[in-house]
């Protein structure tokens, strides 16, 4: 199945070349970081930056596989059978991006496996790493096995069922634990309980938006149509999740306003980030609620992109809080940006290769 990645038309190869270029520039930036340390980044006052932002976003977006797997496996909603493998591969790729983003942020990446060797039950960071590796493997294995069975025209093997059921609580835990990494900051008096919830809701919104975008791209580029019913259902799930997310972000902004919070005290990047994130999110959300636009391919694409960007920006806003209180200025350097884009490109390349296999099977079948 994997050999299909070597066959493709012109746009496919342009896409792959672009990704490879980004990966190469990422590798060269990373080699610089390995030589000079994290001083090549814009960090210093800010402890965590762009790469941890990507980690948070991807770790939570990965969990959205749940919204396809759960209706299919527990409620027997058959139409999702068409996209379950795509959702699982998206989950696996997003977990891989999140893991690599953590890796490029580490001062001593050569010790990354020590995170498993000395896994610490009371450290949320430790849990996030462990859960990501597990989630990556579960999704890759179950997705690949399902696809293999589909190619042979036989029902999926029964041994993947326990894994699929396991992936459901796993997908709920992943964004919650990622949220706990930040929720346990001292400025939050050790627990900001809304943060984990916000991440959970935003996970399902951003992940479903990504999935919707992928199905659109597959339809455009490869003529693979998931069908009206699946698209409608995805849009519905996305609308619910996004509504809930932006209500929570709004609550956060309101609480900051009322409590003489940080949002008003500091006129800097973070303020504009949070507010523009919220506005963009609400604007995108409006598109999903207008019946005429809901059926328009263009409007849906724009709105899904809006949701993804808005939620990504909101992750950044959360990071710029100083753990001990207050807000810091932080501007990422080009080196940092190249590394983060390189990781993103690597994960996208991985996803493209997997989706190529999916397309080959769907076309043959």
């Amino acid at each position, binding site marked *: 199945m994997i050999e299909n990645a070597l066959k493709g038309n012109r746009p496919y190869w342009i896409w792959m070349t672009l990704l490879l270029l980004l990966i190469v520039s990422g590798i060269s930036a990373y080699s610089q970081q390995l030589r000079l340390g994290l001083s090549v980044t814009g960090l210093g006052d800010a402890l965590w930056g762009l790469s941890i932002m990507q980690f948070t976003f991807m770790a939570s977006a990965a969990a959205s596989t749940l919204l396809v797997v759960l209706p299919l496996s527990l409620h027997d909603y058959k139409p999702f059978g068409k996209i379950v493998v795509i959702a699982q591969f998206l989950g696996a790729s997003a977990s891989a991006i999140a893991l690599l983003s953590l890796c490029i942020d580490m001062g001593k990446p050569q010790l990354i496996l020590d995170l498993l060797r000395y896994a610490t039950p009371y450290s949320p960071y430790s849990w996030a790493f462990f859960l990501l590796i597990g989630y990556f493997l579960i999704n890759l294995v179950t997705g690949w096995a399902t696809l293999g069975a589909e190619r042979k025209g036989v029902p999926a093997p029964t041994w993947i069922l326990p894994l699929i059921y396991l992936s459901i609580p796993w997908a709920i835990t992943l964004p919650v634990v990622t949220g706990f990494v930040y929720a346990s900051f001292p400025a939050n*008096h050790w627990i900001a309980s809304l943060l984990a919830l916000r991440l959970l809701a935003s996970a399902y919104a951003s992940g479903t938006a990504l999935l919707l975008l992928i199905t659109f791209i597959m339809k455009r580029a490869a003529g693979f149509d998931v069908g009206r019913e699946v698209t409608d259902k995805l849009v519905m799930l996305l609308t619910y999740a996004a509504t809930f997310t932006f209500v929570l972000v709004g609550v956060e902004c309101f609480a900051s306003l009322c409590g003489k919070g940080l949002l008003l005290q500091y006129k800097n990047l973070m303020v504009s980030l949070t507010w523009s994130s919220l506005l963009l999110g609400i604007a995108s959300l409006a598109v999903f609620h207008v019946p005429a636009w809901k059926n328009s391919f263009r409007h849906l694409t724009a709105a899904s992109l809006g949701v993804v960007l808005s939620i990504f920006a909101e992750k950044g806003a959360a990071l710029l809080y100083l753990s001990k209180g207050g807000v810091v200025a932080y501007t990422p350097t080009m080196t940092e940006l190249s590394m983060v884009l390189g990781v993103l490109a690597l994960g996208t390349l991985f996803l493209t290769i997997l989706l190529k296999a999916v397309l080959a099977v769907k076309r043959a079948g």
Partner: protein
Amino acid sequence: MNEERREFIKKTSIGFLAGIGVSSGLFLNFLMEKTDASLWSDKTVAGTIRWGMLIDMRKCIDGCQKCVDACRLAHDVPDFGNSSRQIEWLKKSPYSEVFSTSGRDFISTERTKKSIPSLCNHCADPSCVRACPTQALFKRFDGIVALDYHRCTGCRACMASCPYDAISFNWSDPRPAIKTLNDSYPTREKGVVEKCNFCSERLLKGKLPACVDACPEKTLTFGDLNDPKSAIRQLLEKNQTMQRKPELGTLPSVFYII
């Protein structure tokens, strides 16, 4: 054909696993480093000592940097100047930073104009130890929050969780930035965090921490908080003292008389 292949794979994997099992039994001692338990037998029982420090600001001279300099020298702490990437085990900063959550209305300028030494609080309930994903940070038998530089992965979760800004990260190679190299303590490398260790290497030799020794005014008092007869406990008994951000429940072992 297919059946045969399956059988073959099955048998080889069982053989392989059995091989691993046998070899791990045979080479158990070879693979694992031995711990000599007798080394610990004469050490103080866990929980009986809790090192602490009292900083008496009535004696501290403004502008004096002797404790800070002594600390830098004792531990080869690199000096990156006044940048956001400065590494500090012990520093002197204004009241508004050290006691950022304490009330500041109408307090005497006497208090606010002096810069106050601050260091790792060696909390009884340290949040950095909880945040560290590899247990590179740990609490010792004597209350000192210690750090294993070789195990630190440089993830900075401890820095994010420390309410006192007591942990620094080596954003670049620290060695070129060390002013005077001292052989009594190992230098660190880029990509790890570092912080005050209450001079555990000096305590081992029966000496006081370098900052306590260096202070000409005896501003800093070091001692066992669990011993009611110690000098530090006597001072705590007689004076009104403060801890930094007590509301967070970390139970700092560093006290202040302001």
